[in-house]
Structures are given as C-alpha cells and as structure tokens.
C-alpha cells in the first residue's frame, strides 16, 4: 500500500495516462484485430516514429510559426516545444493511412504487401532522419522513440484524454456505419453506404490513436496493446459488447499494475506491461484450449 501511495504521489499523470493510453489502444485494437489488419498497427507505429524523427530535422519551424500566430514565447511554452514532435508523428501516421486506404478494392497489391512496404519504408526513413539530426539531440530522439509510461506528464495525459473522448465520440456517433463497413464493406456499399469514406474515417481514427499513443508511450506498448487485449477479449466474450468491455478493462488495468511491478523490480514499465498482458493472454488461451 505504501508503494502504491508513493507511486501515485510521484507519477500521478503517468498512472492515469497509461490507463488512458491502454484504453485507446485496446478499444481500437478490437477493430484492428477483427479486421485482420494487425500489421496496420505495426506500420502506423513505425510511421508515427518516423514523423517524430522527422521533426528533429527542424526543416519546418512549426513552433515559431504557431508562437508568432498566437503571440506566445515559444521557449517558455512547453506545449509548443512538444507540439512539433506530436504534429509530425500524427502527420506521418495519417499519410500512411492514406496510402493504406488505396488498397481498397484494387487488384495490384495485397493489403499485407502494402502494409509491409509502409513498415519498412518508415523504418528506413526514420534511420535516415536520425542520422541527419543534430548530434546533441540524438539521445532525446532515442528516448522519445523508445517511449516510457513514466514520462507521461500533465500535457501528455490531457492530450491522450482528449483523443480518447474524440475516438469515443466518433465510434458512438457513427457506430452504424463503422460497424457495417468493418463487418462487410461490399454489402454496405451495395446498400448505399459510402464504404470507402467510412473505412477512411475508421483508419484515420485508428491512425490518430496509434500515432499519439506511440509518441507518448512508445511503439512496443502501443502495438502490444492494440493486439493482446483485443485478442484476449475475442477469446473470452460471447457477445460483441463484451468484447469491447473486456478489451478495454484489460487495456486499462494492466498498465498501472505493470508500473507497480516495474517499480518493485526496478525494470522498465512499458515492456513490463507488455509481458503482463502476454501472460494474461497465455492463461486465457490455455484455459480456452483445455476447456474445449
């Protein structure tokens, strides 16, 4: 109990931020896993990371542009200081989504092939961007790229929370369209729903969620929490609503538990969260297999 109190005192935003990041990934993960586009998660995390690396080239001084626009002293404003990394991570992920959306109903490339291309190109350009970044900033870049739950501060927490609300709103308001196009895009389209548009809305929302969680908690945590909680929930649930419920509960509960374990064992919290959720997956899978 003492350790828990200490952790809440030391890392309040990290704990609540990790819960929000876990919920975002595990919610979106239900669609990503059920759509059989798990590799989209890997490709988007790498695209988001390439965007962060790009921001360190300082080719566009967005901070200064925004500071001038709003009359803010950019040096003093930490939001603006981090804005560029977040902006480019989002931009690169959305460009990747746009490229991926071209796979809809075309015969020349498979979805997997296109995702593979985005994945390797994102990694390649990230390496080039880091090589061309100012040497003094390389350590900071590496730390941002790796991501760490414990580095979630108030701004990251509020940004993640706003993203969670936006994702929740989009999926509540347009649940009919998103449900239909992710279930059977061809029939949705035949029945007059613009499947291409709604799939783009869906992938853009996934892109926003993945890019921002990747930016704040790293690619390993994001990718793992996209796949594992949803996979566990699909194994457990017999009703569609329960799939979302179980996935979000696992996604939200595991990160704070992982922070506690990581603190006790003096290890990194992000990888610990991945291992914990993987152990849950193994247990559920084994029970499911044995009970058949």
């Amino acid at each position, binding site marked *: 109990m003492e350790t828990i109190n200490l952790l809440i005192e030391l890392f309040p935003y990290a704990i609540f931020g990790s819960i929000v990041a876990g919920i975002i990934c595990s919610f979106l993960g239900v669609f990503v896993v059920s759509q059989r586009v798990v590799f989209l998660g890997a490709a988007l995390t790498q695209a988001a990371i390439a965007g962060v690396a790009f921001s360190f080239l300082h080719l566009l001084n967005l901070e200064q542009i925004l500071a001038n626009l709003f009359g803010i002293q950019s040096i003093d404003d930490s939001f603006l200081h981090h804005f560029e990394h977040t902006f480019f991570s989002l931009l690169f992920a959305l460009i990747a989504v746009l490229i991926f959306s071209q796979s809809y109903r075309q015969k020349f490339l498979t979805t997997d092939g296109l995702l593979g291309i985005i994945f390797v190109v994102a990694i390649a350009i990230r390496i080039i961007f880091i090589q061309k970044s100012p040497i003094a900033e390389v350590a900071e870049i590496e730390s941002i790229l790796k991501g760490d739950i414990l580095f979630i501060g108030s701004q990251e927490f509020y940004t993640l929370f706003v993203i969670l609300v936006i994702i929740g709103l989009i999926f509540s308001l347009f649940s009919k369209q998103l449900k239909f196009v992710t*279930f059977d895009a061809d029939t*949705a389209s035949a029945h007059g729903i613009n499947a291409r548009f709604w799939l783009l809305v869906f992938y853009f929302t996934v892109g926003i969620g993945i890019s921002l969680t990747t930016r704040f908690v790293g690619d390993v945590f994001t990718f793992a929490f996209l796949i594992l909680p949803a996979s566990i929930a699909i194994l457990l649930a*017999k009703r569609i609503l329960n799939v979302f419920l179980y996935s979000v509960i696992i996604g939200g509960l595991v990160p704070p538990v992982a922070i506690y374990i990581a603190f006790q064992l003096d290890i990194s919290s992000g990888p610990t969260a991945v291992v914990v959720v993987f152990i849950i997956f193994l247990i559920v899978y084994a029970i499911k297999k044995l009970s058949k």
Partner: protein
Amino acid sequence: MDKNKTNQIITFSDVSIGYGRKIVLSNLNLSIENNDFIGLVGPNGAGKTTFLRTLLGNIKPLSGTIEKNNLVFGYVPQRDVVQPLLPYTVHDVVMMGRYSLLGLFKTPGKSDEQIVMKSLRRVGIENLKTMNYNSLSGGQRQRVLIARALAVQPDVLILDEPTNGLDTPSHYSVLNLVAELHDESHLAVLIVSHLLSDVANLVKKIILFEAGNFQFGLTEEILSEANLAKTYSANIEVKKLGGEFLITSKHRS
C-alpha cells in the same frame, strides 16, 4: 405508353463497364423489368462481378447511362466474404440491413426492429436471432445474409453465388427460398451462379457473359448447346428431363 416500358425498372443504354481504362464489356443495352428473375452466368472473368458492381453503383460505367430510378437493392454477398472474428448475433447482422435507410445519427427504432423480425421470419430463422453468426452452418448463414438483404425492403434482390460450398440439402433449400421470395413477394431477383443447371431451372431469363460479350434472353433461348460450347470453349450437353434442365459437360464415351 408502351406497356413493356412501364414495367422496366432498370435500363442499360450503350453502357461500357470495366476498371480504369480496361473495358470488360461494351454496348450493353438491356432492360430489367419489375418481376424479372434473371440468372447471371458465364466463365470466370467474363464480367459478372463487374456488371453487378456497376449495377449497384460501386463502380461507375465507363460510358453510357444506367437508369434505375432510386431503386433499393438488397445484396447478398458470397458467404466466404463475411467471416467475422467478432461474435455478432444473427439479429445484429440482419439489423445492418436497416443502417443505410436511417439518417447519419439515427439509431434503429421500433419499426426497424419489426422489419428485422419480419425478415428473420420470412427466411425461417427467427429462432436463431440470439445465436452468434459464427456458430451457424453454411446454409443458416446464407439465410441470415438473405434476411439482411430483405431488411432493406428491396425492389431488387441480388445474390452472388448463394449456394457456393453448401451441402446438398442446404443448397436446394436456399434455392427454394429464393424462388419463393420471387414468387410471393414479386421481387425482381438477379442471381449469379456458376451452376448452370441450378440457374436454368430457377430463373426465367439469363444473361450469359463471355469474354467481351454477352447475351440476354429467355432461358431456353440462351442456354443452347451451341451457345454454351462457344462461351465455355467446351462440349456441353443440355437435356430436359421431366421438364427440368440438366446441363453437363460431354464426356468421352
């Protein structure tokens, strides 16, 4: 006014269909009437799917015009296309048929619920409504997809290979259901199938697709041995036994 013309619900005038610059079929001139029962047959790649997608508005015709007067289409896709990992219930799936008719933000109401139940009853699967779609047999899944198409309250029902992969009882049960829907509801029905005997015994008219060309007319006229031999580049025997078509490939004796 010409009586035939008043019955026409879909008219293709000088239509070319295809993808990008690739023309799959050109000079399509045909009319579909309000109680038509039409089979779409032909070898793979002859243009059946392109024709369907163009008719449904998923792809635009490369040239010409298609008049379809705000018709509502109920579409039944190939069953293999719908392989959900998520545990949607039969009711969830059939309710999707109502989604395109609701506004952007509106959720299904009482009348939608009634229509869904009516559609489930119509295809004889009301008792399955709380079951998971994933747990059903092939024939039951096919009925769910037909119920979803009926929930749109369509003017035209389009079925893409509805008997693919079904066992013999389910196969004939689905075909009988389609025939009943046409007879009782006076729905215009378009059915794609590669099983010539099935289509021949079910429908009144045939569109026979062959690479770059098509023929449209009454079943007896279109499904002649000469026509089929030309289209499929194979010796095909067309017999009538007890008033039923039996279409088989000729084997060496």
